[in-house]
């Protein structure tokens, strides 16, 4: 009798779990598992959306690695963004976070002003920066020129386009500022008082009290920054399009990467191969590379010594 009720109870709770989980179970199967399997399959076929996919072995893979002219530049750009943009964002984010914890007057006003750019929609923010930095009449070059400083071509010059994107990314630092601010306020004040009694300088306090306490947050910011850099899509694509002046009605005529492939990133290759060249097989190859990179860094987030994302409880 007891085993029977126990079993029916267990069955009922299994049903309950399935009911609560059902939206996601369907979503996961239809919008993730199924397309993932298809992506792997398409990557070994020749397919342009018409007719049936034809198996062609590793042809797409060798094409992407050897003959597709955009692949290696986009990897190089991603590496550049990881090294420079992520570093700049973490350093400035931490700096602004520190600054806001030190500001005693008008803290709320400062915090809001620092945070606002993060809210600007990416397309709007990019358009604003292409205007601000346009070499001809943009306010930044107008001011630099008046001061007798060099006036770079920014989004129209292959050496300056990534630094310009970095400025745009640093402008929208609000998310990191909030995270760093919260973690800085969590550092126990006794530790600072103890350090002060020992006669520690401001730098020493930062180095030996603040940094060790916030190290997990810094790591979190770096890893999520790397993931964001690999997924960087809207800003470089829109900046390239708008700066080049080539915007077709449906946007199909512009090959991403302007100027001179300097703003290419991996997600743009999926768009270029799949929706401009209609080479679905090769597009799926790039998609899988993007997938492997994203998962590798996500694993780092979940498995790191500090268990940055609380997967357990």
């Amino acid at each position, binding site marked *: 009798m007891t085993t029977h009720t126990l079993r029916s109870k267990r069955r009922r*709770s*299994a049903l*309950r779990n399935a*009911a609560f989980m059902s*939206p*996601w179970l*369907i*979503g*996961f199967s239809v*919008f*993730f598992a199924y*397309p*993932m399997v298809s*992506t792997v399959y398409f990557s070994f076929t020749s397919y342009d959306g018409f007719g049936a996919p034809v198996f062609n072995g590793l042809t797409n893979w060798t094409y992407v690695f050897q003959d597709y002219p955009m692949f290696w530049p986009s990897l190089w750009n991603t590496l550049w963004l990881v090294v420079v943009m992520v570093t700049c964002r973490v350093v400035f984010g931490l700096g602004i976070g520190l*600054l806001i914890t030190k*500001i*005693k*007057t008008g803290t709320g*006003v400062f915090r*809001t*002003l*620092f945070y*606002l750019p993060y*809210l600007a*929609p*990416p*397309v*709007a923010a990019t*358009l*604003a*920066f292409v*205007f601000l930095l346009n070499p001809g*009449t943009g*306010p930044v070059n*107008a001011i630099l020129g008046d001061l007798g400083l060099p006036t770079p071509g920014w989004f129209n010059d292959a050496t300056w386009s990534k630094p310009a994107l970095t400025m745009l990314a640093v402008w929208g630092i609000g998310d990191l500022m909030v995270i760093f601010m*919260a*973690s800085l306020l*969590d550092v126990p004040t006794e530790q600072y008082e103890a350090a002060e009694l020992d006669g520690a300088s401001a730098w020493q306090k930062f180095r030996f009290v603040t940094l060790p306490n916030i190290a*997990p947050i810094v790591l979190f910011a770096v890893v999520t920054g790397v993931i964001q850099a690999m997924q960087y*899509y809207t800003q470089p694509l829109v900046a390239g399009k708008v700066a080049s002046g080539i915007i077709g009605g*449906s*946007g199909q005529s512009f090959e991403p990467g302007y100027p001179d492939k300097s703003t290419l990133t*991996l*997600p743009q290759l999926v*768009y270029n191969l*799949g929706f401009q060249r209609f080479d*679905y097989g090769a*597009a*799926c190859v790039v*998609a899988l590379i993007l*997938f492997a990179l*994203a*998962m590798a860094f*996500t694993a780092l*987030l979940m498995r790191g010594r500090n268990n*940055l*994302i*609380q*997967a*357990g409880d």
Partner: protein
Amino acid sequence: MTQLLDKPAAASPAKAPHTPAARTARRKALLHWIAVHSLGIAAALFFVLPFVFVVLTSLMNDQQALTRDLTPNTWEWGNYERVFNTPGFLTWWRNTLLYAGLGTVLTVVSSIPVAYALAKFRFRGRKLSLMLVISMMMLPPQVVIIPMYLFWAKQMDLSGTLWPLIIPMAFGDAFSIFLLRQFLLTIPNEYLDAAKVDGCGEFRTLMKVVLPMAKPGIAAIALFQFFAAWNDYFGPQIYASENPAAWTLSYGLESFKGAHHTDWNLTMAATVLVMAPVIAVFFFAQKAFVEGVTLTGVKG
């Protein structure tokens, strides 16, 4: 901003003793205050000036917008009217509100039960499900876009509309599930147990006990989802680019620049009109928003 002019508390001489040591300490505190706030003002200029230049340019007349001038000679408020009267602009607004509004409602409704199960139920595969949710959260949309596009365009015949972007939101969004689950973890189990003792089933416990306590978390995911849809460029580009009647503001804004090639004043006015609602929403919901940012899985 008037607060900036207030006297710093640390430098207030009211009760401080007049010994030389105290005077040096006070002077040091004052210098520190000045240094910190000067840096703050410099940083504030970096964050605010781009907005200022964009707004100033949006108010210039057509001729002046072609020059290097920083401030308008005549203030052309009519530029905003011209943007609103551009064919399509109001349609983009409507589409964006549909995508962001309906999408947000669907996401919230479908993500709540999943987040609740992942936070409060014990079952086999819970940990695996959670890891898959986190993985999906980190997944760039481009990874599965080829099969997804073929599915929506060829099988469902929905290309040229925003439905391929809205329908999936009825099946939970990984980021919303994760964020809400983190929030629900902070609700003590005792409340749920008490409800069950009172004879509530899981569904009623969720509706009557958990949801009222989870309001800040729900507000946060609703805001994030609304902003994500408002800001989305890739989705409308893939599914709606062929049909201007289905464009959203974020997608249409770029083509606005294409159509008004050199009219930086009109383009900047349109840019302001795309930014303004988001910033307005932020001011109304500031607290929920900042709470949400700190909730995104950072261990305190």
